């Protein structure tokens, strides 16, 4: 279907509602295949952007191109698009089979073919044993699979998934995160997937666009956006627990964290002018002191929050009046109020200029 290799493109798309900017002007050419992830917190504009892509909303200015055609004015009915929402939407009075079959029936597909295609997609999603049941008799995860099956049963050129796993329990999310990329691996369609969770973006891989207050701050391969953010806003959007940051200064060949420590400037950054910078350190690069490795800086802080998530431990501590977060693999019990020592692994640090631009990325 994607003869010319071009997928979905936003050209100068902008949306104003009552004079207020909801989506800032943006140009993005999404990857024609694989996952395109929209990552950002609630109200960053993910759903709005998807509604624009689907044709459910009209942009104030700009164009939407799909397969090298301007589809800006084309109604949602005439576009080959399917959408799955956070709340599983199924027809309660229809069986699982009829739920999945409904888009094919609307399209006038022959009965025998409907049976075959529903059977195939149900098999893929593990729904075969429950085709005769009603959605209400299924678990939440199964209901969401029905909604997914309905979106996938028709050959659709564009699939929009708006936080489809948000309402599922975490073990199911884990299984579906693994399953979803496999489902789309052989399909010739553009997938756009919205999520608030950085971990989900990373696990689904593909490409990621980070969103902040209606603005796409960066778009690229997911791993690149994560490890080489263009600015502080992107780095923050792509860190959970939140990224640690602190003002530091560069003086010759040293970075100085006032009152705490100093460490050598990495060779590739020696050419940067002296002056103030912002240090960015993700929580897993702040470790309990036992883990101290070469190139790390030891600091002491008062523990304010300590959490265990099953296989990871998260500790918040106070460092010179600001809160820092450390994430360690394994189960560690910290006492709130106690003082503990942590090692900052500055070999993995990100450095930002005072205007927020990331200055530590390798020139690509």
């Amino acid at each position, binding site marked *: 279907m994607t003869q010319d290799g071009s997928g979905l493109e936003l050209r100068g798309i902008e949306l104003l509602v009552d004079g207020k900017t909801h989506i800032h002007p943006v140009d993005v050419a999404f990857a024609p295949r694989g996952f395109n992830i929209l990552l950002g917190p609630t109200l960053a504009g993910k759903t709005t952007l998807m509604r624009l892509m689907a044709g459910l909303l009209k942009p104030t200015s700009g164009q939407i191109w799909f397969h090298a055609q301007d589809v800006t004015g084309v109604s949602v009915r005439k576009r080959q698009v399917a959408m799955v929402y956070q709340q599983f939407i199924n027809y309660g009075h229809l069986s699982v089979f009829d739920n999945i079959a409904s888009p094919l029936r609307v399209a006038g597909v022959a009965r025998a073919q409907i049976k075959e295609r529903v059977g195939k997609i149900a098999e893929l999603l593990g729904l075969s044993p429950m085709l005769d049941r009603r959605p209400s008799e299924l678990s939440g995860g199964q209901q969401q699979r029905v909604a997914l099956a309905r979106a996938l049963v028709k050959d659709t050129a564009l699939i929009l998934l708006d936080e489809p796993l948000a309402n599922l329990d*975490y073990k199911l999310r884990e299984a579906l995160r693994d399953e979803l990329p496999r489902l789309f691996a052989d399909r010739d369609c553009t997938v756009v997937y919205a999520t608030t969770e950085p971990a989900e973006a990373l696990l689904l891989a593909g490409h990621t666009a980070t969103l902040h207050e209606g603005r796409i701050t960066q778009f690229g391969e997911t791993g690149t956006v994560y490890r080489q953010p263009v600015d502080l806003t992107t780095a923050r959007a792509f860190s959970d627990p939140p990224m640690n940051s602190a003002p530091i200064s560069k003086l010759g060949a040293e970075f100085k964290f006032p009152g705490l420590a100093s460490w050598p400037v990495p060779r590739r950054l020696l050419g940067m002018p002296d002056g103030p910078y912002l240090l960015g350190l993700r929580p897993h690069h702040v470790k309990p002191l036992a883990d101290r490795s070469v190139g790390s800086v030891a600091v002491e802080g008062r523990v304010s929050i300590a*959490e*265990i998530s*099953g296989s990871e431990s998260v500790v*918040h501590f106070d460092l010179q009046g600001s809160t820092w977060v450390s994430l360690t693999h394994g189960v560690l019990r910290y006492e*709130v109020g106690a003082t503990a020592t942590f090692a900052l692994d500055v070999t993995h640090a990100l450095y930002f200029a005072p205007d927020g631009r990331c200055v530590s990325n390798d020139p690509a």
Partner: protein
Amino acid sequence: MARIDLRNLRHSYRANPQQESDWAIKRLDLSWAEGSANALLGPSGCGKTTLLNIVSGLLRPTEGTVFFGERDVTALSAAERNIAQVFQFPVVYDTMSVYDNLAFPLRNRGMSERDVDARVREIASLLDLDATLGDRAAGLTADGKQKISLGRGLVRSDVNVIMFDEPLTVIDPHLKWRLRSKLKELHRRLGTTMIYVTHDQTEALTFADQVVVINDGVVVQAGSPVDLFERPQHTFVGHFIGSPGMNLLPATVENGIVRFAGHVIATAAPQAAVPSGARLEIGVRPEFVSFADTGVPVEIVKVSDTGRNRIVETRHGQSTIRLLLDEDEVLPTESVCLRFDPSYTQLYADGWRVGTEPT
């Protein structure tokens, strides 16, 4: 405050339970020490709410006894048990101020206004509600109202136990982690026996010193967060706690030697006889699997980047084995073998860990 004991407990919602599946709680003995922080953790439908209702007195068990200290309270109503409960959704009086909402349970007990005031202010400050004490509850967000519900649950110091039933459901994710940790701190300050019911492992492990994991009406493990991670008593715990969960591989045992697909595997299990005819599995968490020169030969199927590490999915025959790799570790490209850390490699017979030491 009291120690709580559940003895020989069984419960069925059916009038005439016939088969095993008719029982929502399938025989259970549990003790919660006085002043302890506990969690009941399990997936929806596992029986944890049934158990909670039995402790609070909303439900009379089909069989068994509930003790508060030395006293048999099985026949007592919820009101007679002197407990406090915080539910999933806020229970507040909209027409009252935040202050009056917090004071209500105390005034009900005839406490003097002076003592009421001291206690309300103490709890309000612990929950960061000081600034809103004069506000009408009606104007608050769902978060704000739930904080009042928490405050009302915590305000009385003379209760036997405080029970929380999924109390953070309506809380915004940004506030959730603050409150999770806050509740732990509150327990330490107040010292009341607390039982926290949730399906969320982070909430359970963060709050509790002892976590009771329930599946299908059975307690599969009662232990500390470290126990659940390092020594899952049941394969369900290995799967449910931690992400990704424990690897489970079909095993055979001959003359005390454990094998997976013909390969000898050293485990933490004692050389005790395993029950004959039992389904045997080796369980090892991805954290305790590493690449090695010798061991179980595998093929790498998929590598997923989580940002902080990589989940490597490997295969040996029909079996999938996952392991974790640090972000700077190099992924082997030649033929690869896996090694399991013997101290953290368990043997399971029909789902239960072999060599369970008495608790």
